């Protein structure tokens, strides 16, 4: 399957916007929460992660955000769930490279390939990053707290 057909890319975004995956927070002590309230736009989302034994067991989010922010967060939470930290970081690096117009491995990005043209819309790139920025921070904080233990 190729993701490079424009209609398909739009359909994926539409699907994840109207029917977002993992869009429900839980009240559970084993989850860590990150609040992302952008200074430059009006998106306001929360992302939760449950990371155990070096594996991302669960990712969730909720909040109000635009089509690109919501769909990218939905896609990335689905893509990164059940990956180990090392894989997850590698996939995130590919995704960031795509948005920065650098070389990347598109095989690893699956549905997230639908944002391959987002880099052309300078003022919307941040919408595609809000979710992964939160996930990256959650991963980092998990690593720091593991180091401390």
């Amino acid at each position, binding site marked *: 399957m190729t993701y490079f057909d*424009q209609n398909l*890319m*739009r359909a994926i*975004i*539409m699907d994840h*916007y*109207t029917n977002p995956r993992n869009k429900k927070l839980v009240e559970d002590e084993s989850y860590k929460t990150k609040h992302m309230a952008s200074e430059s*736009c*009006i*998106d*306001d989302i929360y992302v939760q992660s449950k990371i155990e034994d070096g594996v991302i067991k669960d990712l969730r989010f909720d909040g*109000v*955000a*635009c*089509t*690109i922010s*919501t769909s990218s967060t939905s896609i990335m939470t689905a893509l990164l769930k059940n990956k180990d930290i090392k894989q997850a970081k590698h996939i995130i690096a590919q995704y960031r490279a795509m948005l920065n117009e650098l070389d990347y491995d598109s095989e690893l990005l699956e549905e997230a390939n*639908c*944002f391959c*043209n*987002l880099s052309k*819309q300078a*003022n*919307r790139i941040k*919408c595609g990053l809000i979710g992964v920025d939160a996930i990256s921070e959650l991963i980092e904080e998990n690593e720091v707290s593991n180091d401390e233990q």
Partner: protein
Amino acid sequence: MLDLTNIRNEFPMLKKNNLVYFDNAATTFKPYKVINAVMDYYENCSVNVHRGDYDLSFQVSNQFDQAREAVAKYLNATSKEIVFTSGASSSLNLVAYGYGQKYLKEGDVILSTEAEHASNILPWFKVSEVTKAKIEYIPLNEEGILSIENFKKAMHDKVKVVTLAQVSNVLGHKVPMKEICKIAHSYGAVVVVDGAQSVPHLKMDVQDLDIDFLAFSAHKMCGPTGVGVLYGKYDLLQATDPFLLGGGSNARFDICGNILLKNAPYKFEAGTPAIEGVLGLKAAVEYLMDIGMEHIEEYEKELNQYFVEKLRPLEHVVIYNPSGTCGIVTFNVKGIFAQDVASYLSSKGFAIRAGNHCAKILIDVIQASETLRASVYFYNTKEEIDAFIQALSEITLEKCIAVVI
């Protein structure tokens, strides 16, 4: 009637761009008259203002004084009541710290609303923290309007400062300022008016309204950025402490730390001012007075009504301030996030703002945390509104995604 063709020809931003600009509540375009005044300063008289040890400085100082007079005329004030600042935010901070913080004490009350711009409420938060004076909010009605009845109910003996926007930047409603000042004064309270969204659009008469302090920015009224005004009744300005001290604000000082400040307005203007900004502001108020603020006010009201009338039939649009009159239309498209709508409209050549506009009111009174705001000025036209409505009537979620990907 305004001569729109002529007016639009005076704005390079309107001549050059195909952009339909409906973000005038954020800032406005500048006519050649203002641009030329700024350039003239840099090209022909680029020296400091200090009463002239040489001719050119004398001339520029005179122009600077004339700017104060022009602004005073615009407000029906006297020129010694006009303080030049860096903008509405700095004017509002000056009143809060220089007056509020000096005189308020525990037990006193600062009365405001939940619809204020951050620049008119955050300084008072700080004043409240330092002085222990309390902030109370006048309840707004279900449309977000401040009624005189609610104001009367909220007013009491402990209120020492009433601080309000004359026109809200969120919903564009105009508050009955003359009655408010009258009632507030009968309790001995001082009225601080945030005029950022009113002074550019309405005929102002500070004496008739009996306003105590009035703050506004030049850039929202065809003037340059980085300059604004604090108007204050003279005895109140004299009673206010400067926020900054330095060159130009003192008459003399000695090595023991004794400072003799100049009188208002000069004691507030330490340091070299934004001279080109002040001269640009002079050109802007002259330009607006030439057109006539009554005409501007009347035309904008007409545009506002036309906008609402055209927007109302669109079933996928919710309007939050259908009864507004001051050029601000706040709305949402059902089922599409405000930011996506603004992006789509931007791709079609329309500039409007998506945001939460720094005010809490939208959540409490209107139950929408994000909205779209279209704000017009006297150079906008009904044709622009027609084109905007056309673009908005065709909007779909799919199209919003398609303009990005």
